[in-house]
Every structure is written in structure tokens, then in C-alpha cells.
């Protein structure tokens, strides 16, 4: 099990994932993965702090840690709610 930092972007509310550089990407594949067995267990704390900087800099809201796993080769949040956030609604809206 690994972790990532997820948030909503302030200007448009879109779900974003924090990258290694501390910026924010819309695709989960571009987000930095915090391995569970990181040598110093404070890695997730440190990265969350960087995430909170994103809040202070008015880039994102509600930066938090979520658990992710590989499912059929695709990086997916383990919780169903976060999976919906990452992938979008489970139903197709009618747009015409």
C-alpha cells in the first residue's frame, strides 16, 4: 500500500495530485507516490506539509493523504470515494 496527496484546486475545484516537485497534476499517474516502506517514516508528513503550503499559497484546498494501490496495472485509490474522485462519476451524464 502506498500513499499520495490529493486536493481540490482552488480556482476550478478539480481534483489534483501533488507531484514530487510540489506542484499539482490532474492525473493520478503524475502524482508522487509515497511508498509505505519509506526509509524515514516522516516522508508522508513532510509531503503533507508541502501540500499544506499549497493551501497557504492559494493553489489548493483540503490537501490530504490517501491510500492507493495498483489494480490491473493502474494506480487507484483504495477507497471507493477517492476512486470516484480520481476517475470521475461512475455514471454517464446525458449531454445532448
Amino acid at each position, binding site marked *: 500500500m502506498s500513499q499520495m496527496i490529493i486536493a*481540490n484546486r*482552488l*480556482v*476550478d*475545484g*478539480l*481534483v489534483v495530485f501533488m507531484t514530487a516537485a510540489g506542484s499539482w497534476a490532474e492525473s493520478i499517474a503524475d502524482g508522487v507516490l509515497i511508498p509505505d516502506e519509506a526509509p524515514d517514516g516522516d516522508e508522508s508528513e513532510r509531503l503533507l506539509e508541502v501540500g499544506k503550503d499549497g*493551501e*497557504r*499559497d*492559494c493553489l489548493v*484546498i*483540503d490537501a490530504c493523504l490517501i491510500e492507493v494501490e495498483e489494480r490491473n496495472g493502474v494506480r487507484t485509490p483504495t*477507497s*471507493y*470515494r477517492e476512486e*470516484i*474522485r480520481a476517475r*470521475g*462519476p*461512475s*455514471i454517464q*451524464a*446525458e*449531454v*445532448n
Partner: protein
Amino acid sequence: MYRYDEFDHQIVGERVAQFRRQVARRLNGEMNEDQFKPLRLMNGLYLQLHAYMLRVNVPYGCLSSKQLRKLAHIARRYDKGFGHFTTRQNIQYNWIKLEETPDILAELAEVEVTAIQSSGNCVRNITADQYAGRARDEIEDPRVWAEILRQYSILNPEFSYLPRKFKFALTGSPHDRAAVAVHDIGLRMHHNTAGEPGFEVLVGGGQGRTPVIAKTIREWIEPEHVVSYVEAILRIYNMYGRRDNIYKARIKILVNALGIDKFRELVDAEWEQIRDGLLKVAPEELQRIDAYFRPPEYEQLEDLDDELGRLREQDAAFGAWLTSNIIEHKVRGYAIVNLSLKAPGKIPGDISADKMDRVADLADQYSMGELRVSHRQNLVFVDVRQADLHALWRELDALELATPNIGFVSDVIACPGLDYCALADARSIPIAQDISRHFNDAKQLQEIGNLTINISGCVNACGHHHVGNIGILGANKRGKEFFQLTLGGSSDENASLGDRVGPGLPQAEVPAAIERMVDTYLDLRKPDERFLDTYRRIGMEPFKEVVYGPDGPKKRHP
């Protein structure tokens, strides 16, 4: 319909400018999210799972075709091409950007539409009977009072930081289509023994985690005093409502804690001080607003029972639609037409921008350019000539807006649920889709008759599941979605809260469970009994048995 004068335009324009500044101050860091959140909520903007959601008011459910076209345009330009009509007669957009919201509000203001106080701890959109002013069973049209209360409640400086949200509903018909019994304040227009119109005032109703049927605080009050009486209630609530626990902060909690008699004492004492002040509705202002709600020029027409009977025989589909979607109009020769947004497999309440434009055109052509939004997440044309019904039906049918299911089992009410909402525990839309796909035969729908199904994706109950004949509540257990069923709820003048059937079911078992319960009703009902009536007569056991008993669907799935 009410039309803005220069003052309404001025106020709404200033509100948009104020929000534009607030957004700028948020984006440049002058305000943090805690400071900004109540302000954006009071302008209708929620942060949901994927994006911001904007909730736009449709005051007491009344919309013009011009306004609907603008709503379509907003969906197209600023969202993903669709909108969602809610159980409180509002419309929601799911993919809104904060930085574009001031522009959206400015565009809406052009057609006299706002998102002011559609959320937040303040007075929300005031809802009313969707057939107001038109239904044959109506005693008094409540819309003029809904408008007066709307102007009173928006941008009210004293009551914008209440302990919690505050919702009003009005009805002028003895058959309550506005669910006044489950609102913070419900107003029922009726006549006193002297034949004078006035309001019964109900207080402290609500759903959510602790559903409560409202209590009558006043049997009858003169309309000219309704605003001051409402102010007295709001003031008592603002001062004494709980502030320590958001789950115990609604007025229903305060009314329960004090008891209705003590609560009434406090309100009446406050009201005595203010009843004859500036809040007494001046006759000229009443007249001015009332003029907007006078009935239109109707043609002198006859009821077309024979003609419609003939068409009904020729075309079963048209006949089914007449039976379920048409409501009797006050005026001879006219009809009220429900546009069902619940075709099989559709998302309840959702409609595309293109369809909104088509509906606007049809409203112009067939219903004097106006329409209503119903609590059932459908739309309504309230002034259709009976002579036009067949032609209108053909048009609606082509748009999939003519499913003959109003108030029937496939006319499911559902909140957006976990597919959109940050508060949800489970998805409600797929269940609604399953149900409407399953019960898709017009004859079957008529056979079953009136049966309301309401789905909420969490305990906040935005789908109003407590007052569904069948309620479905989504929950999350160890990462899996489970759905709890309730039976016997009703939001009409004999309001009741549903009773729990049993432990939550997995999603796959819900349609079968419903089917079993519907079959039980069909087996055991007496003539003229609706599902609700049969349940009230025979109780829970027969229904529980078919869901959880040895032959129930649970046992059939390995």
C-alpha cells in the same frame, strides 16, 4: 411571474459585485478558506468531489422560457452541457470553476435569476406547490407570499449567520405537494371559519439525521402578519439555536428541546413587540406583487373529455400519459402537464442543455412561456390547452420527456449521491436507474399506481428518503455500499416518516427487493388502496418477510 424592478436589479447587481470582490480576495490570499467558505455558500457554491457545484435558485419553482434558455447557456458555456433539478426546485451545475462564478452570476442576473443564499446558514430557496395558481384543488395561490418572503429573507443582515440552514415551504392547497410538514417553517394557506385567507404556521420539521414532522405553532395568522411572525421565529432561533454541534443545530432540535408550547411562548412574546411595525405587509406592496401572479388571459374553452377519450382509445401510449402526467386545471379547457425527467435509465432530475432549449421553445408554444420545477425533479407546464395535448405529447415523447410515470414507481427521486457529492456514503443514481429500467412498462406502472421511491446517498437525506413510500438510504460498511430500505413515508398533508425494513442490502439486491415488496402489495391490497394505504393497513411484516424471509431475494443470491 414576478418581474424585477430597478431596485431588485440594483441589489442583485451589487451582490454579484460583492462576490466578485470576495473571490478576488480569496484568490489573492487575503481570505483563507474558513473565512471564504460561508460567503461562497451564500452565493450557491459548494465544493464537491470533482469540482465546484453551483446551486441556482428557482424561486418557488417558477421559471420563464427566457430564464430556462439562460440556464441552458450556462450549462453549455460554463459546465458540461447539462443541469440537475433538485428536490427543492433548484438547479445544480456540477462542474463549475470558482474563478468563473462571478461571471456566471452576472449572466444569471441578466434574466433575474440568482444563486443568493441557495446554500449557507441562512434562509434558503423558498419552495411552493409546483401547481400553485393553477390546480383545481387550490384554495389560495401562495406565490405572492413566497415572493414577499423571498425579498424579506434574502440579504437579511440579522439572519445570515444562523446556527444552521433554514428552509421554508408554502402550499395553498389542502393536498400538500410542497412537503410543508418537513420544513423548518411550513406555511399552509387556508381559510379560517370566517372564510378569510391566512396561514397555518408549522415549525421544526425536517429530515436529515433526525427526521421530524413539523408542529403547528399557529393555527391561523393574517397574511399581513406573516413576515413579522417569521421574523419572530427566526430571531428566537438565531439567539437560542445550538451552536456547539452542527448535527444538533436545526430549529427542529430547539423546538423539541423546549417543547412546542414553550417555543410558541417565546415566539409570541417577541412577535407582540414587532407585529405592527415595518414588517406589516403594506397593501400597496402586496397589490404590486400580486399583479405579477394574476392568472393570464385564458381563452373560453370547453373540456375535451370526449375528444381526449377518443384519442386515448386510438393510442394507448397517449392514454397512459394522460392518466399519469396530466393534472386538472382550474380553468375549463386547460391542463397541467408534467414533463417527466425519469425516462428508463435516466439520471433523476438531469437534463441536457439542448433539451432545456427545446423545453423552452415548447413552453413558448404550448404554455404561455412559463414552466415550473417540481420537487419530484420533473418540470411542469401549467397552462396547456387541452386541444394541444396530443401535439405536445408527440413533441415530448420525441424528447423522452413523456414517460407516463408521474408519482409512480419509476418516478424515482434521488440525490446526486457519491458520484458527485462530497457528503455521500454511497451512490444513489445507479439504483434509481436500475429501478426505472426495471419498471418500464406503462401498464405495469398504472397497475401499481402511486408509489413514491426516494433515494438518499447518506443520512443528510437530500433525496428525502424519510418521506418516500419506499425510502432507500445509502451507507458505507467496510468500504462496501449498503442500502437500507424504509416503508410508509409520506410528505403530503398526512405526513409520516418511513419505518426501517431491515439490515442494509447490497446494491445488486435492491431492485429485486423492491419488486418483491411491490408484488406483495399487489397481492394484498384492497380496491383503491395505494401502496402507502396497504402498508398502513397491514404493517411491516408481510413486506419484511419477502425481503429477508426464507424465500426472500437475499436467500436467492448465493
